[in-house]
């Protein structure tokens, strides 16, 4: 963007955009913009030196600006021009051959231009920030103090600069106009002189050319004044014909010739003689008649200032037209070709003025006067103004930085005062100067804030006391831990439930006290808002079961100790609200137990049958032995065989009783342990062995090679398998014995144990598939089954963090389970 201030003094504003790009988008964009905008200078001024200067200005400022210190931009631009200005002066002088006054102007102008541009760039940047346009800016790079500084500086530079440039422009216009106005007057004065000269010369040459020998002059005295040429119009039709003589003698002959031709109209001609004007005029009834010369030139000592007298050359035909003189005019002649700089064009320009000499002399006086002196003197004035502007800008910049630092110091002082107040809660009255209204206003405001804090503090204390009492006395169990899980708060309800008083618990790790049921991936209760369940062994030795979740209450540090003091280091506390699930848990455990009893009940016939078999053998063996012995001698090997049989069957009966007992007496309170699921699957199948045998159900057991462990209560896991097998046996009641097959398939997938137990029964009704795990749902009829077997199985599997579901296959129903593998002993290869 170029603004031509006056004769070649161009102000370029392209770098404004480069600065805006730099501030908003970063150095890469800024450099691209400055390169693009500087390329224009090559077209404008015809050389690349300005390109180098402007780009290096940008790079210099960008480098020394440092990280996000926009407040340095103006100062760095000034420093750059103070360093580069003299160098540019020398470069322009020696490489471009520019004259010193012009150089002074160019360098001063470029420095002023550079400072104006960076100020404009910063102004736009801060305006964007102030008006909150949606742009992304670097944090901490904009300074309000810098903004004020730029406003101050711009307030000096722009009005002053505009005023000076306006004045310069006006002065220049006035100067030129003045010359334009003065020229005709000056020329007309010369014209008066010329008339006098012309009169004198006319008389002189009349005398010279007359045959009056008395009045004739010694031509030799005028040798130096011989006419260079004499021009005349000799054609009566008015066409121009030039004839000239080379000296006075020839001129005389020529005049005589003219006379002889008998031309009548009075004409004038002016001959050219060095420093003299030759004229001729009608001399009454002179012997000769002279014709006006159409063209004359005066040769003066100066090329530039030339004065010429012309007769009208408008030869339109008709002698009378010849005498029409041109209107007076004054014009500036200037070479405005593209390859001529404006300054040079003005320096080489001239004012050309045309004025008629005299009515008696129908000739035009043309004066050409160079403008160079005026332009040169104007240039000097412009230089002076530009340099003054530069110095004023420099002073303005220094002053603005001074004010900037004062503002920042003041700001920092206020911040420190407020900071101290917030920290200490008190106001240092001596730090304020009441003579200044700002200080006294700030002091009053801080006093008000202090007062309100103190009121708020009291209100807060009341609220916090009430809150503390609330959570202490509520019937809901509430506890709090810090980030590390150390108990910091334990309300009275928890004291009552657990039997542990506050002092026994505060400071202990929560996990050392409670056994947390890790589910839903919760490993750190302080990092989750999900509900979790946990058990605590009370002081009395019983177990209580609770569910809890974290509340949104945080950092009520001051509420939490019995002394009402902040907790150590003001630590962040996590509050948990719990719910006693002991009854529900016990009820569930009872249900699990009852379901086990129910399963045993369903197996009772087979159990009784299985137990009676060995008892029967024992009783019959003993009876047979007694019978034979009572009848006579019994071989000893017979008796031995009977005794052995009795022993074996007794042990067998004991084993059956043991297994049943183990199954029946397992408790949900048993410890969770890692166990081999395949082994316990097989135990469950063994337990069901007699039932399976009696119902002619074949069990097809398949398992992956490898050994994995799952975590849970093994007997409850067996209970799940027993429940499912019982259901399978019931489902296949009506199936032909040959086709009664129960498949148990164990596999591993994605670190989960997968167990599928399928039968060859009729399958499960599709509408019942979603309900079979519901409590008290049974497809077996009212008197068969309790309807809680699968529900309990689901409860047990879920407690092991697993899933259980049912579906129908082509051959019958399938109950599937997926339980996370807790440990891999030997890698299973899937199945």
């Amino acid at each position, binding site marked *: 963007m170029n603004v031509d201030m006056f004769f070649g003094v161009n102000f370029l504003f392209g770098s404004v955009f480069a600065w805006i790009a730099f501030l908003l988008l970063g150095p890469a964009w800024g450099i691209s913009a400055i390169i693009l905008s500087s390329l224009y200078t090559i077209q404008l001024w015809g050389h690349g030196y300005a390109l180098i200067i402007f780009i290096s200005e940008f790079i210099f400022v960008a480098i020394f600006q440092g990280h996000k210190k926009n407040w340095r931009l103006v100062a760095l631009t000034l420093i750059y021009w103070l360093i580069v200005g003299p160098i540019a002066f020398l470069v322009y002088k020696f490489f471009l051959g520019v004259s010193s006054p012009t150089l002074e102007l160019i360098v001063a102008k470029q420095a002023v231009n550079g400072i104006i541009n960076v100020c404009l760039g910063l102004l736009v940047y801060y305006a964007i920030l102030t008006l909150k346009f949606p742009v992304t800016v670097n944090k901490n790079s904009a300074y309000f103090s810098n903004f004020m500084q730029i406003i101050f500086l711009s307030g000096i530079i722009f009005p002053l600069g505009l005023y000076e440039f306006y004045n310069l422009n006006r002065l220049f216009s006035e100067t030129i106009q003045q010359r334009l106005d003065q020229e005709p007057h000056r020329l007309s004065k010369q014209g008066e002189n010329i008339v006098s000269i012309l009169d004198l010369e006319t008389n002189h040459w009349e005398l010279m050319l007359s045959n009056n020998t008395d009045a004739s002059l010694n031509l030799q005295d005028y040798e130096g004044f011989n006419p260079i040429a004499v021009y005349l119009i000799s054609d009566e039709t008015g066409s121009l014909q030039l004839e000239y003589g080379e000296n006075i003698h020839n001129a005389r002959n020529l005049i005589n010739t003219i006379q002889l031709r008998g031309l009548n109209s009075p004409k004038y001609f002016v001959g050219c003689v060095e420093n003299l004007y030759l004229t001729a005029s009608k001399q009454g009834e002179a012997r000769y008649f002279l014709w006006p010369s159409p063209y004359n030139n005066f040769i003066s000592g100066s090329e530039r200032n030339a004065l010429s007298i012309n007769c009208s050359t408008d030869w339109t035909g008709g002698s009378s037209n010849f005498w029409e003189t041109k209107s007076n005019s004054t014009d500036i002649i200037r070479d405005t070709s593209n390859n001529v700089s404006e300054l040079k064009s003005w320096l080489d320009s001239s004012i050309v003025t045309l004025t008629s000499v005299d009515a008696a002399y129908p000739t035009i006086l043309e004066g050409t006067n160079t403008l160079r002196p005026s332009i040169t003197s104007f240039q000097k004035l412009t230089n002076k103004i530009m340099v003054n502007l530069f110095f004023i800008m420099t002073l303005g910049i220094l002053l603005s930085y001074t004010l900037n630092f004062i503002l920042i110091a003041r700001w920092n002082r206020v911040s420190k005062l407020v900071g101290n107040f917030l920290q200490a809660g008190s106001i240092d009255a001596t730090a304020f100067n009441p003579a200044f209204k700002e200080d006294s206003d700030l002091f009053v405001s801080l006093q008000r804030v202090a007062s309100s804090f103190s009121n708020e503090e009291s209100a807060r204390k009341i609220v916090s006391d009430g809150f503390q009492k609330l959570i202490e006395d509520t019937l809901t169990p509430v506890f709090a831990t810090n980030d590390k899980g150390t108990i910091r708060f334990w309300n009275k309800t928890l004291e009552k439930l657990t039997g542990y008083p506050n002092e026994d618990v505060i400071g202990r790790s929560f996990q050392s006290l409670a056994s947390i049921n890790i589910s839903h991936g919760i490993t750190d209760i302080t990092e989750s808002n999900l509900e979790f369940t946990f058990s605590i062994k009370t002081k009395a030795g019983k177990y209580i079961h609770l569910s809890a979740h974290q509340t949104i209450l945080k950092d009520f540090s001051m509420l939490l100790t019995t002394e009402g003091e902040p907790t150590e280091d003001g630590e962040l506390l996590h509050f948990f609200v719990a719910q006693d699930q002991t009854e529900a848990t016990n009820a569930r455990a009872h249900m699990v137990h009852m379901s086990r009893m129910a399963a045993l009940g369903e197996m009772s*016939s087979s159990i009784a049958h299985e137990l009676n078999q060995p008892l029967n053998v024992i009783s019959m063996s003993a009876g047979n032995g007694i019978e034979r012995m009572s009848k006579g001698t019994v071989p000893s090997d017979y008796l031995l065989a009977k005794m052995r049989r009795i022993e074996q069957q007794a042990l067998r009966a004991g084993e059956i009783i043991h297994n049943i007992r183990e199954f029946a007496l397992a408790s949900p309170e048993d410890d969770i342990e890692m166990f081999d699921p395949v082994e316990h699957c097989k135990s469950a199948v063994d337990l069901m062995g007699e039932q399976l045998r009696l119902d002619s159900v074949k069990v097809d057991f398949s398992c992956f090679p490898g050994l994995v462990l799952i975590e849970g209560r093994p007997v409850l896991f067996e209970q799940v398998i027993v429940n499912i097998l019982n259901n399978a046996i019931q489902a296949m009641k009506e199936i032909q014995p040959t086709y009664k097959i129960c498949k148990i398939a164990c596999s591993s997938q994605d670190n989960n144990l997968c167990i599928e137990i399928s039968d060859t029964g009729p399958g499960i009704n599709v509408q019942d598939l979603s309900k079979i795990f519901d409590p008290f749902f049974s497809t077996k009829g009212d008197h068969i089954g309790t309807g809680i077997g699968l529900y309990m199985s689901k409860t047990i599997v879920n407690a092991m963090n697993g899933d259980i579901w049912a579906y129908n296959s082509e051959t019958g129903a399938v109950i599937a389970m997926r339980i996370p593998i807790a440990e891999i002993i030997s890698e299973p290869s899937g199945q």
Partner: protein
Amino acid sequence: MGLVVIIDDEELICEELLDCVEALGRCGRTFTNPHLALAFLNQTNKAVDVVFVDVMMPEMNGDTFISNASEVTGKKTRYYLMSGVRKSEVYSISDRSENSFLQKPLSLARVKKCLT
């Protein structure tokens, strides 16, 4: 005196009961598979006086066996159901008379009573 047939899926029980029968001076045959026992009863010429049969057997329970076998053996043959569970727990045998039910474990005296 006719044959005593013993059917129980537990081989040891068959052995001891046979021993008991023989100790009481009678002849007996044992079967662990009720189908084989039925086949025997169908084809034997011998008179079968008493049949002891276990109630709970895979493939065929005792009650079904009695229903099938009694068509072959006629009314003279006495059938006794042996079971380790209470009579009321064994489905569909509640129609049988109390006298035809033998609660395990069996005593020699009870077996003797059945044979006389």
